[in-house]
C-alpha cells in the first residue's frame, strides 16, 4: 500500500495504551480495527477486528506471534491464525483474508491509515 493513497491518518491512541506484544481495538466510525504492538519486533500492525471465521469482533484480543518469521495473530475463538502483514489466513487456506491497515507512530501517538479502499469515512470528519 502506498502512502499517496492514504486519505486519513486516524490518531488512534498513545503508544503506552497498547499492551506490550498485544493488541487493542480502535473505533473508527462504525468500523473496528485491531491494533497490535509487536514490541519484540519493534513493529506495529493493524487489521480488521472481525474474525472472518465466525464473524466475531475479537482479533484485538488474540495472541500474536510468528511462524517461520511471519508475524501473525491467533483468534481467541478457534485459533485461526492470520498474517499481520497481508492478512491471509495461515492455518486454513480456505478462510477469508483480513483487511490490513498501515500504522505510523509520531511523538508517542499511534496513527492508523485509511485509504479509499479500506476505510469508509462516511461522515467525512477526518478527511
Amino acid at each position, binding site marked *: 500500500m502506498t502512502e499517496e493513497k492514504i486519505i486519513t491518518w486516524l490518531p488512534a491512541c498513545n503508544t503506552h495504551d*497498547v499492551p506490550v506484544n498485544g493488541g487493542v481495538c480502535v*473505533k473508527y466510525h462504525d468500523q473496528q480495527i485491531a491494533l497490535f504492538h509487536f514490541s519484540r*519486533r519493534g513493529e506495529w500492525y493493524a487489521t480488521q477486528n472481525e474474525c472472518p471465521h465466525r464473524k466475531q469482533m*475479537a482479533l484485538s484480543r488474540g495472541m500474536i*506471534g510468528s511462524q517461520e518469521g511471519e508475524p501473525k495473530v491467533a483468534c481467541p475463538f478457534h485459533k485461526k491464525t492470520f498474517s499481520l502483514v*497481508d*492478512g491471509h489466513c495461515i492455518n486454513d487456506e*480456505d478462510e477469508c483474508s483480513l483487511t490490513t491497515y498501515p500504522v505510523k507512530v509520531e511523538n508517542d501517538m499511534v496513527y492508523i491509515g485509511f485509504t479509499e479502499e479500506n476505510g469508509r469515512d462516511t461522515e467525512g470528519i477526518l478527511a
Partner: protein
Amino acid sequence: MKVVVIGNGMVGYKFCEKLIAKSSAEKVEIVVFGEEIRRAYDRVHLSEFFSGKSAEDLSMSSTTWYEENGVKLHLGDPVQSIDRPTKTVHSYKGITENYDVLVLATGSAAFVPPIPGVDKEGVFIYRTIEDLEMMQAYAKKAKKGAVIGGGLLGLEAAKAMLDLGIADTTVIEFAHRLMPRQIDDAGSGILINKLEKLGLKICTNKNTSEILGENAITGMQFTDDTKIDVDMLVISAGIKPRDELAKLCGLEVGHRGGIVVNEKLQTTDHSIYAIGECALYNGMIYGLVAPGYEMAEVVASHLVEENKSFTGFDMSTKLKLIGIDVASFGDPFVASHECRTVVFEDTMKGIYKRINITDDGKYLLGGILIGDAEAYNMLLQTAKNKIVLPPNPEDVILGSRGGESEGGAGVLSLPDEAIVCSCESVTKAGICTAVAEQGCETIDAIKKCTKAGTGCGGCVPMVKDLMVHTMKAQGKYVRNVLCEHFNYSRQELFDLIKMHQLKSFDAVLDKLGKGDGCELCKPPVVSIIASLFNEMILVKGNDTAQDSNDRFLANIQKGGTYSVVPRIPGGEITPDKLIVIGSVAKKYNLYTKITGGQRIDLFGAHLSDLPAIWEELIDAGFESGHAYGKSLRTVKSCVGSTWCRFGLHDSVSFAIRIEERYRGLRSPHKLKGGVSGCIRECAEAQSKDFGIIATEKGWNLYVCGNGGSKPQHALLLATDLDSDTCIKYIDRFLMFYIRTADPLTRTATWLNKMDGGIDYLRNVIVNDSLGINEQLEADMDSFVESYKCEWKEAVENPNIRKRFSHFVNAPEEKDPTVVFEGMRDQKKVKDWK
C-alpha cells in the same frame, strides 16, 4: 528436437517441467502457447482466490522460470490452426512455429447446457481467474445465488458463493443425489444434511428450463413448474474437452468430445500427443490433475526414450470443502453380487462410511466416506496396493474396538512402491529415503525435497506418519517439542525455567528459544512460570502471553462477551451469597446457570463490566473460580456425614479444605477433584483427576480419572489414609504432574503415556522412589502460602483494570455488535453463522 506445447495450464506446465528434468537444454527446444494471459496457475486451488490468494500466489512457477529454462512462452496468444503436412502451428497474433513433436494440453472448458437465457448478465462459469474476478465484482450487488450442478466443482462453487457473502445460495442438481459419480444415495443424504447446516439450500431432481430476466438474471424456471428468485448463477454442469483444434486438423475425436489417444498418449498422428483434460483414453476423460500429471510423465519419458505407458488412473477424490469430509475411492459402487458391502452410518453425527470388499473378504475394492474421511489415504492405498484386509474388515472403518489401536502401523504395511502422494507420484520409499538418507525431519523439508504433499495436500497426514515411523526405526527420539520457537519439551522447559529462575515469557524466549513465540508456546511457558513462582499472571509483560481467557480472567463466549464464575468451594454456599449472585446478575443483565461443577456461572458480561462485577462479588466474600485457567476448577462434594444417614466422614469440609488448598494452581491442563462421604459415591469422585472416598478407617485416594470425550475411571492410589496424609499425597501427585506432563494433557492421558502406569506412579508418590517428594511438598507449600485471588488484584490495580475495555479510544463504549435475544425469561446470545 523441437517440442511445441499448446496450452499452458496445469498439465502443460508440468509436462515442460518434467521434460526439462529428463533432457538437456541443447537437445530439446520448447515453445509454449497459452491462451490465458497468465503463466500456468494452480486451478485445483482456484477457490482460494476468494480467500485472498493472488494470481501470483497460485502461479505454478516463478516469473523467471521459463526464461531460466530456455522455454519460449507466448501468453495471451491461442494457436488457431495446425498444419500437419508442414508440421507448423499458427497463432492468433500471427506467429508461426514449426515442430518435431506437438503436445496438445488444451484442457477443457465448462460445459454449459443449452438452457434459454444462459447468456444473461449474472450467469458465470467457474474455470479461470478471470471468471472469478468477474464473479467477485458481480457478487457485491447479488443477494440470492444459485449453482447448477451438485458435483465436486458445483459444491466448491457453492461454497465460494457463501464466501462471497451470498448467504442465500441454492445448489440445483439434475440427478436425484449429489456427486452422483462419486457417492451413493445414503451418502448423498448425509452430505445434504451437512451442507444445509453450512447454510446452503439443496434441490435435487431439478431440471432448469429457463433463465429468467430482462438483461440480467432475476430467476430460474424449472421443468416441474416451480421457480426461484436468483440474481447470480454459476454453471458447473460438467466439462467439455477442448478438442476444437484437433478436430480442425483432422485428428480423431470421441463422439462426445476428447482427443483420442493410445497408451503413449499419441493421437492418430503419432507426432502429436494429447495430455490432460483434453485427452480421451479408452473412452474416458480424466477430469483430475493427478492423471494429467501421469500423462505428462508418460509423454516426457517417451520423448527421451524411456518406456512408460499410460494404463488408466484411479479416480479417487476427496472434496476440499472446508468443514465437510467427503471422499470416494476405488470403485465406490460395485454391484452387490460381485462383492460384499459394509456400511456404517451415524445420522446423529452425520457420518457415513461404505466399503466394498471382495467376496472372500480379502481385498478392498473401493468405498465412500462422508463426515469423517480421516482413513481416506490409508483405505485408498489398501485398495490400490491390494493389501490383505484384517480378519474383521469392518475394523478399517470402525477402528479396531477393544484391542490395541491401529496407531499408524497401517502405513508400515504398505509396499515400498505404494504411491502416497498421487499428485506428484511420490512413493512410500521416496518419502522414507528422504527422511532416512537426506535428513528431512519436518514436513516442510519433505515437501521441499520430494514435492510430496505440495499438490492437494491430502497425503500430508500419511507423510507425517511415515516420517515419524522412519525416524523411530532409525532409533531417533521423536521429541515432543513445543513449536518452532523452542526445541524443548514442556518437561525440559520446566526444569530449565526453574534452574535459570526465568520469570517472564520474553526472558524464557531470550534464554531458551528463538524468534517471537506464538500461540502454541506462550500459554505453556507462562503456565510453567505461574506454577513455579505463583506471581500474579497479568504482570511482567506476561499478560499478553496468557491464553486469551487467562488474559481477561474470564471465558470468552460466542458473540464476544464473557462468563463469570465465582468459586463456591465444595458446592457449599450461604443464602446471603446466593442473593448477592442473584442481584449482581440482575444488575448487569447476566444469564445464570448452575454448572456441572456445583457452582453458578453468570454468562454474557461485557468486557468493560467485568471489573465492576468482580468488585461487587469480592466485596461479598467471593473469589475467582478460575473457570478460565488451566488450573483447579472444583472439588465436588456430596453432603456427607453432617446430614446423610450413610455418611462416614464430613466430605463437605474435606472438599472445601482441598479446594481452598489448590485454588489458583496453574497446571498443564485443568484439574478437578471430588470427595464422597461413602462408597455410594454421590460426588462421582472416581471421574476426577483426584477423587477421595470415605472408608470406615479414613479415605481412599483415586487418581487420573477423566470425564470429557474419552471417560476413564480414576485408579486407586492408596487406601485408608488420614486427612493429612491424603493431602500430602495429593500435593506430591499434583506437583509431579505439573513437572512432567505435556501441555494440555489431562492427568488421565498423562498416566496412559507413563511407562509403568499406576504402579510406577504409586512408587513415586507413596514410596518416594525418585527421592523428590520432599521437594514436591515444599513446592506445594510455598504455592499455597503465596496464593492470592487474582481478580482481587486485578480490580485493585488501575493499570490492569484499564485493559478491560473494548475500545481503546472510547473506553466507556461497549461493543455495539454484541446482540442478545430473549429465551425463557433470560437472555441468550444471538447465534453465529
